[in-house]
């Protein structure tokens, strides 16, 4: 039920990019490793990585529609490197908020994937309330000295730079005293400790900053204007997640309905249980409607209207994951008491039940999502803010 987007002006672009890909892309040798890296460098060089950006910054000044045509052609062949003007939150944020010197230094390498990055947003006291960051940056000549603690940082151990949100002014209300930096991770004042999750994994880290330094030239946006930078960066992130949710689900027929839960029910001998069958159908419906919602959101956005459906996806996914885990646990039965490789069915049921909280808590809890939906889509009154207009130094906090 899907076909390539078309447009009068886009034909020329499609021809050009197709010709370029025909010349440069060899799927056999380039899928991974060094040849892939070299190919992406060529994509950047040719302006296909971020075609909507100005020519000066690796782009081609294309319109949004033309940009989509480029992405489509890349996607059609499975070639990497395109669409970064919409997806590469690091390069995009530097491009939008960095000085020319910073752009010169970072935009190219970031597009080429040469700069391992991490996000230094959340703190122990700033979870749902992201603006409540207490990591402190104090000016010292051309540099800033940073002290504080960040959490939920993935890739912190390998990252060369981090997108750092910290407080530079404590005398103004919380949203106004925040500044954003492109922060060098490989320095003595940075200590990374793995954070153990309830699943037993350690996908994330805590990052302790003690007298760490960042040049003022690495500031992104105005002094005290970090909240706006963060909002832009988060929007890029959401767009990536939205794309991911919509990816590869163009034809959502019933074919894959014999899904993994049905197979598990068969495997565990429970497919004949009428109670389980109701559950299986219920979960299948939750999944299907979410896919359809994503397709509908895509269509609405492509038709130029803002889509209220898109914002519902995270809340929906949370429910799908928790409900699937519940049914999976019912199917695993006593096996769910045991973990480890000896008991894969049980192990998986526990892992998925626990890991579902990654979605219902991470990136904005279900409760925060409901607030957002209620306020932004339904237009209901905003939550009362006790800390509004109060200098941050006077705002109550947990610690």
């Amino acid at each position, binding site marked *: 039920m899907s076909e390539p987007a078309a447009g009068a002006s886009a034909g020329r672009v499609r021809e050009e990019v197709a010709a370029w890909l025909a010349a440069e892309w060899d799927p056999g040798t380039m899928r991974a490793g060094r040849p892939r890296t070299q190919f992406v460098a060529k994509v950047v060089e040719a302006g296909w990585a971020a075609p909507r950006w100005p020519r000066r910054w690796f782009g081609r000044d294309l319109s949004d529609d033309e940009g989509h045509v480029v992405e489509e052609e890349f996607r059609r062949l499975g070639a990497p490197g395109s669409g970064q003007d919409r997806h590469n939150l690091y390069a995009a944020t530097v491009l939008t908020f960095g000085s020319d010197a910073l752009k010169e230094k970072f935009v190219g390498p970031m597009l080429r994937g040469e700069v391992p990055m991490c996000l230094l947003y959340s703190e122990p006291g700033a979870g749902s309330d992201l603006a409540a960051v207490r990591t402190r940056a104090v000016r010292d000549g051309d540099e800033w000295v940073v002290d504080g603690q960040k959490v939920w940082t993935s890739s912190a151990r390998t990252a060369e730079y981090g997108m750092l949100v910290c407080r530079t002014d404590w005398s103004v209300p919380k949203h106004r005293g925040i500044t954003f930096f492109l922060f060098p991770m490989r320095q003595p004042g940075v200590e990374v400790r793995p954070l153990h999750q309830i699943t037993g994994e350690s996908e994330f880290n805590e990052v302790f900053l003690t007298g760490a330094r960042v040049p003022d030239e690495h500031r992104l946006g105005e002094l005290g204007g970090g909240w706006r930078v963060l909002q832009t960066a988060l929007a890029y992130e959401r767009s990536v997640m939205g794309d991911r949710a919509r990816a590869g689900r163009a034809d959502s027929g019933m074919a894959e309905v014999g899904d993994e839960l049905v197979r598990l029910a068969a495997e565990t001998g429970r497919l004949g249980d009428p109670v389980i069958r109701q559950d299986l159908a219920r979960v299948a419906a939750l999944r299907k409607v979410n896919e359809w919602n994503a397709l*509908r959101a895509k*269509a609405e956005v*492509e038709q130029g209207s803002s889509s209220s459906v898109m914002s519902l996806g995270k809340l929906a996914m949370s429910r799908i994951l928790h409900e699937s885990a519940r049914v999976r646990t019912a199917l695993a039965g006593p096996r769910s008491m045991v973990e480890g490789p000896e008991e894969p069915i049980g192990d998986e049921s526990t892992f998925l039940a626990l890991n579902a909280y990654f979605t219902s808590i991470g990136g904005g809890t279900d409760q925060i999502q409901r607030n957002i939906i209620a306020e932004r889509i339904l237009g209901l009154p905003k939550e009362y803010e006790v800390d509004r207009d109060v200098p941050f130094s006077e705002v109550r906090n947990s610690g």
Partner: protein
Amino acid sequence: MPAFAVPPEHADLRATVRRFLVECSPEAEVRRLMETGTGHDPAVWKRMAGELGLQGLIVPTQYGGAGAGRVELGIVLEEAGRALLCAPLFGTVALAATLLLESDDTEARARYLPGIAAGDTVATVAVSAADPARRPPGSGVAAAATAEGWRLTGEEPYVLDGAAADLLLVPARTPAGLSLFAVDGRLAQRHPLQTVDRTRRQARVTFADTPGELLGRDGTAGPVLARTLDLAAVALASEQAGAAAFALERTVAYAKERVQFGRPIGGFQAIKHMLADLLLESESAISAARWAAAAADEGAPDLPALASLVRAYCSDAFVRIAADSIQIHGGIGFTWDQAAHLYLRRARTSAQLLGDPAFHRERYLQRSGAVA
């Protein structure tokens, strides 16, 4: 065109129907018709056919219709659901016209479809539009060939728009198998039911040696009826989704305007979060119903499974939204004069029509290949 894209003509159709129903089916009119014996306004019925062509929407142009598809019918039914339109539209179009289009009896089509399209014929299919698990469609009536033609005997307890119908299309058993018959409504005994949802009427229809006219070939009605019921299930899902969306919209509006403790109740997180969850239900029901209607138009082979999945979802979503809507309205929601309960009555009743959610979930699993 990509899935869910809305061409301008569909947007126009929706706007036209909505405008018409805002004029002809406001709450006051719905409440008036609820109290009448027949439950609909014949003058409006004629205007629906004459001005908008709703009864003939899916009827081919050769029979005086617009030749549109299930997507267009879905749009009309979403709007009819929003307005709680009191009219025998579902029986006439989603059941009877659909059945005639699915059957291969071109003579019958030519005889009946023009009257339906013109708004002259109210019709329905005399299946007990409920409890298919224990009462398979067509199992209630038997037909026998006599010297004077076919004669039908039996009963269908819950026939949608059964009392208003001029034309009854009746599935019945014959020695050759399941067959279809056209019966003059006046010749059947019709006992109007005291429906919980007074905006949509049902009747118990009894046949006692009642003359009927064979439709299609004797014994071949099974697949035609099955397909018709799948399409009707999708159509009902559209109606449910539209009604659910409007029930939510009016509740959101109330939550913004109703003040308690010095502020709108929609500012309290308990209400905000309920409404956010309901929006997910409402939008999901809309997506599901529209997807299924498009799949029907495209002849998707998995329509039987899809129809059941979507119907179960839309039934539950509508009931939940209508139910929580009363809770959010608070005391006023408990009064007859507030419309919240009209939507709950419609929701609870619709959830039973053509099979309840549990039935459709089980049927989905069977049809999707996951047979126990």
